[in-house]
């Protein structure tokens, strides 16, 4: 068999299943989602009507949607804090240091822990009566905090869990970027008499500029997709809708309220937000 025929056979057999799966679980669902968002399908009955833009109108007129979006915003601000802290710790870990690998591994550890285990662990940590944080607060004669049942606090508590979990991941990426900066850059700048701040400002920051953007993008798209903490820890975004996120609200609309079409419209809106964020990020990368 000549190599030309072989190549055709190889490409067909190797790529058929992966492409079929990609088509089935990515392209088809995307198109279906958009289509469903213009109907009144309830997810159960076989028939539906076309209803134009009314689901999208409902998305913008539902107060819980805006509340959820605000909560995603809290996750995002929390993510910015996480990036700042992670960069600081990465800079520390990139310097000469005893026990560097141990510090790095420990700080990264939460990232590989099971999400349900983390959720239930923090349920306990945040427990109003028996939790360790309130134990300390009471010992210091301070008011205990209702971390998970006070509507004004709950989202911050959940975002805190997310920070605990993903901080090490962000840090390790910054650390890898810092360690790939060639040493000569610093050496020659030092000869020119640059001080520490100048080195950081003019060599370190520009060198890891792309990675900072990448991490910020991961933060933004991650915060738009926040789901697990609220789903498990506050029973799908409670109390009421206080800790609801876009994603928990989508899941509740579809599976608790059988409002598939509305959930589809919500998903499309979320998808558009994520895609816009991605495009902006790629533009920024191309610009530099």
């Amino acid at each position, binding site marked *: 068999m000549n*190599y030309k025929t*072989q*190549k055709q056979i*190889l490409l067909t057999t*190797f*790529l058929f299943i*992966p492409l079929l799966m*990609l088509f*089935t*679980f*990515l392209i088809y*669902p*995307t198109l*279906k*989602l958009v289509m*469903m968002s213009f109907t009144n399908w309830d*997810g159960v009955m076989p028939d539906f009507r076309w209803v134009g833009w009314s689901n999208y109108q409902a998305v913008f007129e539902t107060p819980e949607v805006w509340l959820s979006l605000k909560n995603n915003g809290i996750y995002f601000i929390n993510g910015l804090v996480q990036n700042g802290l992670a960069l*600081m*710790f990465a800079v*520390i870990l*990139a*310097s000469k240091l005893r026990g560097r690998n141990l*510090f790095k*591994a420990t*700080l990264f*550890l*939460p990232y*590989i*822990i*099971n*999400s*349900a285990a983390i959720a*239930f*662990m*923090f349920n*306990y*940590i945040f427990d109003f009566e*028996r939790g*360790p944080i309130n*134990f300390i607060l009471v010992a210091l004669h301070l008011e205990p905090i209702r971390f998970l049942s006070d509507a004004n606090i709950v989202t911050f508590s959940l975002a805190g869990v997310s920070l*605990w979990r993903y901080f090490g991941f962000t840090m*390790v*990426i910054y650390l*890898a970027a810092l360690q790939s*900066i060639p*040493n000569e850059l*610093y050496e020659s700048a030092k000869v020119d008499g640059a001080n*520490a701040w100048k*080195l*950081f400002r003019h060599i*370190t920051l520009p060198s890891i500029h792309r990675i900072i953007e990448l991490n910020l993008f991961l933060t933004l798209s991650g915060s738009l997709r926040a789901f697990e903490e609220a*789903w*498990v820890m506050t029973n799908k975004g409670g109390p009421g809708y206080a800790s609801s996120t876009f994603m928990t609200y*989508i899941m509740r609309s*579809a599976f608790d309220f059988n409002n598939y079409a509305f*959930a589809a419209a919500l*998903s499309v809106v*979320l*998808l558009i937000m*994520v895609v816009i964020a991605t495009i902006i990020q790629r533009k920024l990368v191309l610009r530099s």
Partner: protein
Amino acid sequence: MKIAAALTGQSFSGRGSYTAKQFYFNLLKYLLLVLGVLIVILPLLVVIFTSFKSDVEYTQTSVFQLPASFLNFENYYKAFTQGEFILAFGNSFIIVLFGVIGNVAFGSMTAFCLHRFDFKLKKVINGIYYLSAIVPTMCLQVSIYSLLKSLGVINTYLAPLLLYATTDIVMIWIYMQFLDKIPKSLDESAMIDGASYFKIFRSIIFPLLTPATATIVILKAITIYNDLFTQVLYMSRQELRTVTTALIIFQGDRINAQNLMSAGIIWVMLPTVILFLVLQKYIFSGITVGAVKE
């Protein structure tokens, strides 16, 4: 210069004396690191302590108090049996195993085709994978759910397997990066010997990709084991409980027995933590390759 070293993450030759300023700066560095480590470790310690306490002990001692004995495995035994963890670990193992096999097989095959050959559809395929990196599958779950429902696979192993085995772009990137390092002259000399493309892939390329495969196996195993979304949504039947969902079911059953719950939490955490301790190197290299390429 020590400060410069710290700020820039570079080591400087340490000429001159160790000044007071340097000393305080180093002290600050270690204080911050220790603080960070404490924030990571303390919640885990509290859970570990609690998991070894008997019911009476739990109600009578404070959270930070050490348990009377670290050999009191009663909660671990009870959590394991009442939470039906044998079933849960078995189910998690099945979805991890087949999910990982799917990713390795499809990922290496796709990467081989895209890296070594030029063909008409290549641009289109690259475009689709590029799209898959932008569109989060999580946003598509509403329609994926109705699709899987019409296929009749919800609450069977097939639903999570189909979703987990769908190659994600990061796997392909990792394979592509390793393929860059395997010289094409190897393929060519094998072709002179008359080896078929299949044989080249099977006996030359795939074995040389072992480090990439190791990274992907570990990363994917951890991701699938830890995933909540797919398992909650598609495996809600009791007999299909996984380690992740077992904890949720368990909590619903006995909400007040925090010491028992803590033991359950530790059971669930153990596998990936052990894997991480043993195979750190692969995990770190995997996430940096994946992320930086994105």
